[in-house]
């Protein structure tokens, strides 16, 4: 921290405005690494399905370029401008979620994408971005009101509506959880006490345990495979993936095989065998297991370290942001990225039940990437506004 302070001071002395190049380098590295891994994990499937090994790579490059442009544009916009329109962001989330109903495109039994004039995107990703801006704005505007249970409840309530809609309209539970998690992180940063988060945490843990127990109790009575519910079976597959090897446990099990077979240094870039038709959508939610297989434990830990560096840079920006709004925005971005990375790796290692969460910057997916880059733009914008004189 001392280093960054002297950096800032030096920047101020020289009359330059601060720009977080560390963050940029980390993001660029993640982006390029992501492209490499997307190509490695998708080329086999792309060739089989589309006859073009770089089918997914091309689309991801376009998304990356668009994302970079978006990041720069957002970073250049003074971020206090977002404070003024922040409350509208909530409406934006709502509108995009409801756009799914007329424009939604169904895939794998769920409507998650909107196709408008040839461009497809996921409203859930836009909702995450918009909710970060909205919540930062709301909390800032509530002032001390946030410390009351009422204010706390109000913020959570507003978030819960979006989460519920995401769950209900797009049947996208993971996005709902992430949005709710972002809100919790931002509230945690903004409020003083710890007690209520411990309560929330313990309550959540008990609830989760109860759900698991109930499902297990039901399952033991009924023959396996006949267990009621889509999610119920997921829980059972989580506890014993081998028993559901050909069903719900398949993806998880294949992912574990990939991780386990990678060893310490992996099989080498591009040498994954699990991506050859065994891990479904290897370029997507399961890309981390391909990384583990090809680059081994070493590569996986290095990638995790890179994420920690990224989060650390964001923490510094949040620490030093010019105002509370900036701090909250960056905290929201931190929350978003950390939650997704942790949940993604947790799913891939079967630490939690399988749910679709992509790995930020790495996984294939255009709208997620562009939205993330916008968030990076926001963080850079906050960083840019840091004035040395404050220290």
């Amino acid at each position, binding site marked *: 921290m001392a280093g960054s302070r002297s950096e800032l001071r030096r920047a101020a002395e020289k009359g330059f405005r601060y720009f977080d190049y560390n963050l940029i380098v980390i993001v660029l590295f993640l982006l390029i690494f992501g492209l490499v891994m997307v190509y490695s994990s998708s080329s086999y499937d792309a060739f089989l399905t589309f006859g073009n090994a770089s089918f997914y790579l091309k689309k991801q490059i376009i998304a990356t370029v668009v994302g970079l442009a978006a990041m720069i544009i957002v970073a250049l916009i003074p971020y*206090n401008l977002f*404070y003024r329109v922040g409350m509208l962001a909530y409406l934006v989330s709502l509108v995009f979620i409801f756009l799914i109903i007329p424009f939604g495109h169904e895939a794998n039994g769920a409507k998650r994408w909107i196709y408008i004039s040839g461009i497809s995107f996921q409203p859930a990703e836009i909702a995450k971005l918009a909710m970060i801006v909205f919540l930062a704005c709301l909390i*800032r505007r509530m002032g001390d009101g946030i410390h009351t249970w009422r204010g706390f409840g109000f913020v959570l309530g507003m978030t819960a509506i979006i989460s519920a809609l995401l769950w209900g309209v797009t049947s996208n539970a993971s996005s709902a959880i992430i949005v709710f998690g972002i809100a919790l*992180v931002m509230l*945690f*940063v*903004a*409020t*003083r006490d*710890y007690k209520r988060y411990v309560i929330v945490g313990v309550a959540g843990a008990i609830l989760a345990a109860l759900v698991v127990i109930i499902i297990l109790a039901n399952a033991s009575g009924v023959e396996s495979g006949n267990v009621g519910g889509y999610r119920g079976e997921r829980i059972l597959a989580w506890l014993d993936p081998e028993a559901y090897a050909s069903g719900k446990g398949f993806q998880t099990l294949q992912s*574990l*095989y*990939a*991780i*386990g*077979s*990678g*060893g*310490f240094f992996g*099989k080498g870039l591009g*040498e994954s*065998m*699990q991506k*050859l038709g*065994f891990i479904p959508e290897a370029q997507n939610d399961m890309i981390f297991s391909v990384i*583990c297989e090809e680059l*081994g*434990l070493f590569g*996986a*830990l290095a990638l*995790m370290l890179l*994420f*920690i560096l990224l*989060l*650390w840079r964001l*923490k510094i920006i*949040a*620490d030093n942001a*010019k*105002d*509370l*709004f900036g*701090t909250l925005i960056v*905290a929201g971005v*931190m*929350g978003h990225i*950390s939650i997704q990375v*942790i949940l993604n*790796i*947790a799913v891939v*290692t079967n*630490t939690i039940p399988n749910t679709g969460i992509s790995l930020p910057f790495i996984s294939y997916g255009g709208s997620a990437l562009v939205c993330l880059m916008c968030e990076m733009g926001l963080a850079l914008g906050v960083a840019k*506004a840091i004035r040395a004189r404050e220290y």
Partner: protein
Amino acid sequence: MAPVYNDGRVKKGNRNRNQIRTKLRVFFIIILAAFVGLGIRLYMISRNNGEEYARQVLSQQEYDSVVIPYRRGDIYDRNGMILASSNKVYNVILDCSVLLGKEEYLDPTLHALHSVFGLDESEIRSFIVANPSSKYKILAKRVGYEEMMAFLDLKKDEETGSLIKGVWFEDEYVRQYPNSTLGCDIIGFTSNDNIGNFGLEQYYDSTLRGTNGREYGYLNEDSDLERTVIPAVDGYNIYSTIDINIQSTVEKYLAEFNEEYKNNVNIANGAENVACIIMEVDTGNVLAMAQYPVYDLNDPRNTDRLIGARQVDVEGKKTTGKPIEITANLVMNDMVDPDAISTEENGETTEEGAGENTETAEDAAATGGEPLLMTESLYVTEESLRLMDDDTVYQNLNSLWKNYCINTTYEPGSVAKPFTVAAALDSGSITGNEYYNCEGFLKVGDHEIKCHNVYGDGYLSVAEAVERSCNVALMHISFACGKETFLKYQHAFGFGLKTNIDLAGESRTASLVYTPSSMRQTDLATNSFGQGFNCTMIQMITGFCSLINGGNYYEPHMVSKIVTSDGSTIENIEPRVLKQTISPSVSAKIIEYCNLVVAGEYGTGKTARPAGYRIGGKTGTAETLPRGNGEYVVSFMGYAPADDPEIAIYVVVDRPNVGTWGAQADAKYATRIVRNILTDVLPYLHIYMTEPLSDKEKAELEEKNLMDTHGFSGEGAELETVSEPSGEETGAEQPADTEAEGGNVEEVHEEAEQPWKDFDIDPNTGYAVDPNTGAYVDPVTGATIGLNENLPGGEAPVTADQDASAIGDAPDIIY
């Protein structure tokens, strides 16, 4: 205005900021903790399950291998005609998971399957619904190339073809025998798994069989999946020495014989077995080998072919006609009154009966039907077939599939006489100038062994002894040899030894011949005329060829050439002389004697001579065991042309369906077949006629659409016009003629008394009747034909002889 911490109240703002920083720090620590936790989790996975998962990854890679079937080699006859061949067929395989990949695949694919293979759409549909993930379902087996191509054409179709998915074809070969029954006992058949059964298929199984190929994937050094194809190696083709034309001629006449005598006395085939071998005298190559009954090689398990055959029980032994139990619901109720059967009887029959009886009794109990008694069938009928269990049916099929010519052993009878004479001549025991007095029997030790002509032939030269098939003379000749010499020659002629013909299933006969220590004088006496020891047909004809070809014993052969699937020759199997059995001069004498059998006026084989040819040979009639049952094996073994034999032919009629005693001393059943076969085969082999033709013979040739081949031979061209029938032509169908001719001949022939010449002729049969015994007697040769209960079997050796009966009791079929 940018919002600042708490609107400029610096103190409070700093406190807030510090608080927030603390919170961020706590949050960051939580994140770090989560990352560390996940890192440990990753480490644990790769430490605890790393190897197991690595193996899993390798094992689920699809280096699945596909077997590429080899093609079993073809079997050709000597002219390259196909006897057996393997043809590619295709199994239609459905991969449901591919078919269900898109909904629009389903209907076009099912429609195509229905239109090409006639498969039921709804049936496939219900299978798909039940097994959506099935990847391998055989929809149709063994469809032909045309059908497969029709399906592939549909798939190539621009519009709908791309929607036909999930169907592929698996190669398979199916063995086909284009001539169905032709040569069945030589060729044999294959079971489903390409294993040869019987005949050439079994003997040359390893030659015909190839090696399956394999297409498989494997992981190379860099763990990349690679696919490799090891092509199948097809089996070798074999060329048999069989000539398909000769074979079919032989089979035609064997079947014709069967038609003639079928259901004659018994409701059964024309004979238990009738078989023929034609062999090249100077090579040992078999030109034809056939028997009746036959079976369809393409459908060997069809039990219809069994009907009329001698029935065997579950142990493969011939049925004896003993009473058996059957269930009431299987027979007519009026056959036996069920109430009359006591439980005692049930118990007895079950005890003594074979396994099947117990089973049927159990069946009866199960079905609630009353067990009945009836006589076990001697011959297979539709009804007895219905009563058989599976094992018994299999045993009966097994006896149908066996090759009589190499598998069945029997007492050869008088066809063994040339061997005895040859042994005596070659060993110098006789000179050929001796005369023997036949009084109708010879007393050997305590036993009177009878000649077939019980009235005696008087003084006979060696040549006449063979011509008339005189047992007494032959006994004298064998005594001149002594048993050591006799057995030494018997061994040299191949009796008791396998010929090692290249066919599966040849019997071992070592225990069916005598050794010097086991042979007594009576045994030597009966052996001299072919009773008391057992042999196979192939032994007889192979040995006989050496008698008439100058003494060269050739190993008999069925296959002349082995070639690869692309036609290059691997092996030529050349004729192989194994030994010199007799000297060429003795051989010449044997030919001279055997020619008399057909040409001589008292010859027993005159009816074997085909029109226009001179042939030689020897007849045989052997009584089967037990002695006195009146059943005979009649045979003729001959060769053509008479002076320079090229082919040998041996026909055996095993127990003709002519009733008890009906076949005694009457080799006509065999000689007529020989005559028919040679009439067709000799011209085919470019052996031309040398003898004048009678008008009757000309008419016969014309009827058979055969050419008079005198013109081709160069020498006998002028003889064509000779029309006078020679005295030897004995119309087989007209015994009255025979009698008349015989009468003419009698005046010329002044021999010792021939009392049978004075017997009355029975108007019904044409045979002379002995006024003392009432027995039928051949009016020419004096041989006893018909029966009288008091009359002992003409050629039967003395039944009291224990050694002989011990040997005789040995089973006919030796494996």
